[in-house]
């Protein structure tokens, strides 16, 4: 298992598939306590990222690059492209938040491969970016409630396992964290306008975070094409 730029690219492509597959579910969650666009926002954003990845790949293939003399491909490059593309295509609250998350993550992943500690650093940086921009704390019923347990779980797993274990732990914790937003009353984001009425519904951004981290795990299972 190598967590290199190919893995990162597979991660992002699988995320694009996942949000497209689950778009209606995300939309419905956001319809219940927000404005019903979260699915659409992410589908639009990740579709744009995939288009850029395709274009870059076509360029590389066309130029005959990618051979032995090609410059090294860095994980952080994929994440940075993802960041800037999400920022300029998603809109809404989640655009700047995911955009900032990937931008910060890119900053600590400027390597050809990343190890277990790299994974932890990447997730920590992403969460820091989200809280720096959105000012939400755990328990406010936002994506922070999926990212926070994910980072903690990755840290714990990193003590005993490899990078795949860390990612798997993060994804499982994000999933549980998202489910755990159901009873919460939102105090950040659109859902906060509903006050008590926001309880009893899962936060859409927490759910999309769980999808994103699950895609990172799925991307482990495949070797580059």
């Amino acid at each position, binding site marked *: 298992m190598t967590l290199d730029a190919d893995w990162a690219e597979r991660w992002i492509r699988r995320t694009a598939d996942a949000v497209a597959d689950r778009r209606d579910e995300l*939309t419905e969650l956001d*319809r219940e306590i*927000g*404005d*019903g*666009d979260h699915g*659409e*926002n992410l589908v*639009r954003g990740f579709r744009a990222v995939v288009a850029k990845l395709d274009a870059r790949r076509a360029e590389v293939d066309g130029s005959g690059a990618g051979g032995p003399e090609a410059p090294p491909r860095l994980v952080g490059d994929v994440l940075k492209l993802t960041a800037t593309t999400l*920022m*300029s*295509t*998603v*809109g*809404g*609250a*989640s*655009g*700047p*938040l995911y*955009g900032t998350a990937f931008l910060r993550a890119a900053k600590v992943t400027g390597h050809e491969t990343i190890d277990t500690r790299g994974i932890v650093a990447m997730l920590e940086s992403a969460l820091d970016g989200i809280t720096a*921009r*959105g000012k939400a704390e755990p328990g406010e019923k936002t994506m922070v409630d999926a990212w926070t347990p994910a980072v903690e779980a990755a840290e714990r797993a990193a003590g005993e396992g490899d990078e795949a274990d860390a990612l798997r732990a993060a994804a499982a914790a994000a999933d549980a964290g998202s489910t755990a937003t159901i009873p919460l009353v939102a*105090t*950040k*984001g*659109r859902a*906060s*306008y*509903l*006050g008590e*009425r926001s309880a009893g519904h899962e936060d859409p951004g927490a759910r999309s975070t769980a999808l994103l981290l699950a895609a990172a795990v799925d991307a482990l299972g495949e070797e580059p094409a």
Partner: protein
Amino acid sequence: MKKLLNDPENAVADSLAGFALAHADLVQVHHDPTYVTRVGGATTGKVGLVSGGGSGHEPLHTGFVGDGMLDAAVPGAVFTSPTPDGILPALHAADGGAGVLAIVKNYTGDVLNFDLAVELAEADGARVATVVVNDDVAVENSTYTAGRRGVAGTLCVEKIAGAAAMQGGDLDDVTRIAQHVVDNVRTMGVAVTACTVPHVGGPSFDLPDDQLEIGIGIHGEPGRRRVKAVPADEVTQMLLDPVADDLELSPGERVLLFVNGMGGTPASELYVVYGRARRLLEQRGVTVARSLVGSYVTSLEMQGASVTVLRLDDELEALWDAPVHTAALRW
């Protein structure tokens, strides 16, 4: 879902294309990224005004681009904040050398995306001030929410700041005036029906035929509470009282009363609400010195209305009365 649209994915682009053709004397529409500017571009020496937000609130904001109001507007996807790559060129296009005021409705998405764009514009050397409009009294302004939303009062901010910029105010003046409006304008709204976002295809919430949503925003989100449908006079009181109370209006004060339709409300109903709101204000000893009735800050085809009150002083009154020439507001 039935709408007068083509591919729902292109709803915003198709609509802007028609808008550009219909108002070619006033506006220019730019694509990839999307933003709308006043014909003729920035006025040298005038403070530029830029606003923006999700689409679906038309005529806000594109319909307010023109003389005496906005220099540029940035429409996002339906009910979705625009992205920094659209906001940034709008900020630059509005910049006539005297700086730019960004008027942002208080939604996490709008605030974050404008913040990003303003950071980028400042990095390019632009001088940008921001006011955040948060007139919606339905939401508690506390640490338990993302703060009050910006709704119909945004029109008042854009009109009055636009007049101040037109009259030669510098960036500090225009920002002060805009903030002064923000501090004195309050709104509360009601939904009679939900609305349907084109690419979603179903109603934004399910509202039984005998219920109203009180305290809605402008994104088809449910309100603060659901009440049994009651006559317009009672509904109006549920909207006006919190607005007037929050403003702490005293007898003898003068206000602007703005009754706004949510997009699908017949004008005749808006006047019923207006008449009642006005009588309630008069019962408080408040003078309605200026009025506006119409569908200006909408939620697609939603039926419903909001009541906005702006406390007036001589300065605000004169700026409100100053000429304006945009697609949707003109005098």
